[in-house]
């Protein structure tokens, strides 16, 4: 097991190296750069001045040369300074990451709490009215574009009824602290979390239902019934434990992704998380931030697959790592 994890981490490092070069090259090939962006409104800036600025920001080197420079800095733990924030990139990501995580994680927990029982309920009565209703709702949730759904919710609950705040994370001009602050944030999170849950739950529902259906048709479920076990044990113990194997795997793999931020929803609700910051960074051509953010995403993805593989081994006694 330990050996397996070490080997996986080592291969991940190789993958990251390749990924980092691709990201670097692609970002550098984007049309325009930070200097162009900054000076575009000012016709008096001369070409020499622009060149000076490029040198200052480290944008004057070629892709390969620049990449080698970036890599050697990164390996020493220096990911550069954000052009727009004028603070070390790692610091910026570190502070915004938790905002995104708290939003995504609360939605994630709610999704699972709803999707697992409903998915099982749908599977137990396949093709019944209950099943059709649950699957219809799941599909409706998947099909709703989050920007549209968010706007509708804002129109109804914030603008129309005035029950909930339109956007932001805390009430303006109120310096809440401690528990009051938490409550205030929770109040502001209601709408964005609803958007996350409704648009994200469908996938989980379908996943749980499909897995449960497969397991309910398995021979060992028939054996359990033949033993005379009550239906609650047949489904709740024999079937559920087997359904859990892929679900746990999937859940574990999704956890790192919760730090990545949601670009659209965070943007609409003006929540100062990683997703919104990343979007701003694209617009502003904030190269060091984007580079580090995308590398961070790559690390999270690799971490997710590693976690899901490890959990798979823990949940299923048949899996042994070599």
């Amino acid at each position, binding site marked *: 097991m330990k050996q397996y994890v070490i080997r996986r981490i080592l291969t991940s490092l190789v993958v990251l190296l390749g990924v980092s070069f691709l990201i670097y090259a692609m970002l550098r090939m984007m049309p325009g750069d930070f200097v162009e962006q900054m000076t575009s409104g000012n016709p008096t800036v001369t070409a020499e001045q622009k060149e000076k600025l490029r040198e200052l920001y480290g944008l004057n080197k070629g892709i390969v040369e620049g990449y080698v420079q970036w890599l050697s800095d990164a390996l020493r733990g220096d990911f550069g300074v954000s052009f727009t924030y004028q603070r070390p990139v790692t610091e910026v990501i570190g502070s915004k990451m938790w905002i995104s995580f708290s939003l995504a994680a609360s939605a994630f927990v709610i999704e699972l709490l709803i999707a697992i*029982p409903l998915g*099982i*309920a749908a599977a*137990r009565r396949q093709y019944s009215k209950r099943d059709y209703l649950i699957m219809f709702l799941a599909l409706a949730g998947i099909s709703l574009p989050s920007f549209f759904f968010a706007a509708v919710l804002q129109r109804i609950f914030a603008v129309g009824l005035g029950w909930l705040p339109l956007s932001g994370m805390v009430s303006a001009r109120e310096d809440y602290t401690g528990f009051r602050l938490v409550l205030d944030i929770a109040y502001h999170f209601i709408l964005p979390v609803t958007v996350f849950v409704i648009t994200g739950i469908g996938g989980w529902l379908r996943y749980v239902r499909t897995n449960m259906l497969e397991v309910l048709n*398995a*021979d*060992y479920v*028939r*054996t*359990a*019934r*033949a*033993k*005379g*076990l*009550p*239906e*609650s*044990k047949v*489904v*709740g113990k*024999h079937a559920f*434990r*087997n359904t859990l*194997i892929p679900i746990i795997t999937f859940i574990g793999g999704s956890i790192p992704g919760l730090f990545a931020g949601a670009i659209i929803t965070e943007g609409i609700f003006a929540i100062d998380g990683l997703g919104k910051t990343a979007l701003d960074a694209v617009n502003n051509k904030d190269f060091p931030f984007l580079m580090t953010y995308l590398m961070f995403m790559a690390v999270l993805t690799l971490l997710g697959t590693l976690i899901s593989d490890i959990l798979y081994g823990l*949940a*299923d*006694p*048949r899996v042994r790592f070599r």
Partner: protein
Amino acid sequence: MWFKNREKAPIAAEASANMKDSSNVLEIDDLKVHFFTDDGVVKAVDGISLDIPKNTTVGIVGESGCGKSVTSMSIMRLLQEPPASIVGGEIRLNLGDDALDLAKMNKDSMRRIRGKEVAMIFQEPMTSLNPVFTIGEQLMEGILVHRPDIGNAELKGKVIELLKMVGISRSEEIVKSYPHELSGGMKQRVVIAMALSCEPRLIIADEPTTALDVTIQAQVLELMRELKDRIHTSIMLITHDLGVVAEMAEMVVVMYAGRIVEQGTVYEIFENPLHPYTRGLMKARPTKDNKSKRLYSIEGNVPSPVGLPDYCYFHNRCEESEEDCKNEYPTLVSVTPTHKVSCYVANKENKNA
């Protein structure tokens, strides 16, 4: 919770029945099991009657799709209803003092019969054990569900004893292992131990040796025969292997397309097969004598169970069919008190003889 927990209602009065003969453990009377599908009504089992006497092995033979498994699953009431439905007939189970009609049982009372009075051994030992629970756990819960007051020590002792009974030597170790750590033969022994755990009156074995290799097959059959006498149970043995039937069964029932075409004692069926289908099955067995020849097979397939003809279902595959065979489906006629056949040709021969 989304489960309805109807607590222990007494076994429904409407399910009580009277045995025709108290020496039978199970009597199936004109059982009809139909599947209502989009393509029409599939008459998977259409009016079969058979008796299983106490401490006897009854073999049910026939090709795939003859309704053997549906019959067994109906006794256990494990068919998914709908689409399946028991549209007629009785399945009477002898409980000693009284008898029950399993066809009329509700779900909850049926649950208390399963495993306790009637147990089942399935075809596929590889998949019929739950991969994520230990052997011990799976054996224990089967006992615990029917004997909730059993003590922990007694339960553990019972499991070890069961495993020893089915010939698993390192039973203390096996209790803690998972199904995938066992060989196919071992798993089937565990499944048999599971079926025996509450000393049921009837064990239904649905092709218990089909998935095993030949040497293990013989061992498992030997084991089943030995255990049957040890706990005084009856076995309903479903198989398409006539060799297994000859070895194991005292009574034989031959099914074709959801009906019984011939039944009798094992001697009657093997010495004097009357139905052309039974004869065909006999001829299709590999024997020592005809090494060089190709193995005989009955032409054609079991007819589709949707829209069966109103004459003998075997007619278009039958090598001995005559004019009469286009008449209505032949009734089951007794040749001896135990031997019955449903065939015009066989009846005529019999009268002439």
